[in-house]
């Protein structure tokens, strides 16, 4: 069984001191330890941004891809090798700006993977610009007069896209986030966790203190995770109180389970020698 020590890599961490990403890194590695998975049976996929460095900091299989394309890349891996535990990491700009088009589709296909979005509501690595989840009026270098557009609501969006596991975490509460990640990985189908992740350098608004004063846990208030209507209602809650935890969960066949030719076979292990195309050739004569 894997230990936290096993998961460490020799790479020097270059996140800013106090970055919210540390909480996600800690929660993810702790979740892997709790789940007792072998590290060579886990694949993480990341996009571009501060979150993308996860591939450098966790010693599991990894594909550090390009901006916005975590989900299709992970989809290709999951479908052809279901024995792997596939976890995608994306930033808010990565997933909700550049990659927004893939988000709904991965959810509606119910690809059997977990997506963890490092949602700091700002572009960090490019030195502070607005993103799809930046609050209205948020001033950045690209919006010096304040962000005009309304922020997207990823949790609500996941719910209306028929998400089968929709959750929100907070990187300031590692214990809670760890439990969410454990549940997400255990869930068969697409698991989505939007994680509030304070950017200590570029987001002056949504800070640790800001979240601390607002977040509360759905599971401590008797929320029924099987009630999509209620989940939707909860997803719209924003302001003085902001819910974290599992909004909704249901059992539903994943995309792969609807492919009779695949099911749980690792396509990577099927022989490709001597494939008999004669029946097709016959139909062409």
């Amino acid at each position: 069984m894997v230990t936290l020590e096993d998961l460490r890599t020799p790479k020097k961490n270059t996140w800013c001191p106090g970055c919210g990403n540390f909480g996600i890194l800690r929660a993810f590695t702790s979740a892997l330890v709790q789940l007792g998975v072998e590290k060579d049976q886990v694949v993480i996929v990341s996009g571009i941004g501060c979150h993308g460095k996860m591939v450098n900091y966790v010693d599991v299989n990894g594909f550090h891809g390009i901006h916005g394309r975590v989900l299709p890349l992970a989809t290709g891996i999951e479908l052809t090798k279901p024995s792997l535990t596939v976890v995608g990491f994306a930033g808010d700009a990565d997933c909700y700006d550049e990659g927004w088009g893939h988000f709904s589709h991965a959810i509606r296909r119910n690809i059997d993977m977990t997506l963890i979005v490092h949602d700091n509501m700002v572009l960090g690595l490019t030195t502070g610009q607005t993103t799809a989840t930046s609050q209205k009026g948020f001033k950045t270098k690209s919006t010096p007069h304040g962000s005009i557009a309304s922020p997207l609501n990823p949790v609500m969006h996941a719910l209306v896209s028929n998400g089968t596991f929709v959750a929100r975490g907070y990187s300031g509460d590692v214990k809670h986030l760890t439990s969410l990640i454990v549940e997400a990985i255990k869930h068969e189908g697409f698991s989505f966790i939007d994680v509030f992740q304070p950017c200590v350098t570029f987001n002056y608004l949504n800070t640790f203190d800001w979240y601390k004063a607002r977040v509360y846990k759905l599971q401590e208030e008797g929320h029924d995770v099987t009630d999509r209507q209620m989940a939707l209602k909860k997803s719209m809650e924003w302001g003085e109180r902001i819910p974290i935890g599992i909004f909704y969960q249901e059992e539903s066949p994943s995309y792969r389970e609807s492919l009779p030719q695949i099911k749980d076979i690792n396509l990577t292990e099927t022989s490709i020698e001597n494939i008999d195309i004669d029946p097709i050739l016959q139909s062409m004569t």
Partner: protein
Amino acid sequence: MILNQISVMIGGEAGAGIARSGFLFAKTCMRGGLHVFGTNDYQSLIRGGHNFYIVRADAEEIYSQADTIDLLLALNQETILLHRNELTHGGGIIYDGEEVELSEDEMGINNVRLYPVPLKSMVKELEARPIMRNTVALGAAIGLLNFDLKIFNGIIKDTFKEEIAKINIAAAKMGFDYACDFSRDQFIGDFEYHLKKTKGSRKKHLFIAGNEAVGLGAIQAGCKFYSAYPMTPATPILHFLAEHERDYGMIVIHAESEISAINMVAGASYAGVRAMTATSGGGFCLMTEGLGMTGMTETPVVIVLTQRTGPSTGLPTYTSQGDLRFAIHASQGEFPRVVIAPGDMEECFYKTMEAFNLAEKYQIPAIIITDKFLAESYSSVKSFDLNRIGIDRGLLSTQLEYAGKEAYQRHKLTGDGISLRIMPGTKGAIVRTNADEHDESGYTTEDPALTVEMADKRFKKLNALIKDLENYETTKFFGPKEAEVTILGWGSTKGPIREAMKLLNKEESRSNYLQILCLCPFPVANVQGVLDSAKLTVVVENNRTSQLSGLIRENLLRDVDHKILKYDGRQFNPQDLSQKIQEVL
């Protein structure tokens, strides 16, 4: 009498079953022992407009459509008005005499023969759907040509379900019987063209389109993952593979975009399966960032680029060779790739198989570049030799456990630049790759020395690839060794060029032809050899700027003498092309 040599056009509105009729007639000719070539012309619409399908059949081997039409099956008046000038002297038109009024005077040009057949009334009599006028017309054509209706019925039975087959057979018989009665006074002139079942039966031949041959090549090569977004003229590959995915343990996924498709394919390949996508120019534009990622992460993928007339949306359903430079240079940065251009259906099959081997051996993207003309035209070809191209996955370990003494490194620096590939999930190994520049273990790096080492590593693979390509057919030479003119081309112009050569070389050896199959890396030595012995060179291409001439200039520092370029979305016709070549002689 002109026996077993004919060009037939079927024309009408979109939605009238034109392509299907062409397909059925062509297959009938093939089963009758003839060589056939079928090509379609359709517009970007679903109903209305004007579509046509040309079937050429011949006892001799043929490579493309002809310039003219011997028999026109006109399902509406527009077809006659648009195509009557393409009819040969003594050619005929089958049309619905009750719907379209044509006088002999009006159609006097070229001594055209008129064969009115009451298509609509016959369909009514059969209580069949109006679309079946085309089957009645096909039956009439077979009767007029004195051909064998039984063969046609066999094709119908193989193609349709019992109920539909039955009514089609009845409709065809009605047209056939009507046309066989030559005493009809409204039939003007005897039809000289006849088809007769030949002994040299091509029963074992396949009637196949370029797209299908690519799809078949992928299945045979063990492609297990295909993802694409529909885009004409690449869409039929998606249809073909989706139809067969369950029989061949393959995943075919209609992605939300071409961006998604290329990334899914990269993911599947990283996981360890052979994976492919196909698109046309616009979709390929969207794929370019993903393409670069496969170059950087050394993830083998096969991409089929089925060209159509551009730029931008251009003519979505017409042919072009305008994307050659784009295929060679697409994406930022520098990395090795292979670009292969099949010129006919057989090459579509074999070269697709080769593309998978090259992609995996060198851990690079392989691009197969075709075009609408090749992708959607059909021809009768010898059934494929399934043993010709073996499967070579290169330095890929499929062991479930990693046996190496040192920790596995995906991007290990080696003599030829090729690192051992293993699949994620292999016990005892971590497979890490990275679209950022990376070290041997796949960790991000910005170190200048390592950046150089890694770029050099990737380009060492190119040296190995170039050397290996000596074992592949990167060019093909046709015709006499010595000739007045040497034609150079790539891709689908092959068919019309070979037809034009038949005409040019009838009496004396006037032309030969070098087909370039591998455009990147460019087969310098082969092309050099041919150019050195050529008296006069002419490049034939379906584009405006003669991209091949540019490549020759770039790689060989020499110019070609002439360029014959066609960029109206339509392929060259043989006679027209031979005349243009004559003009430069």
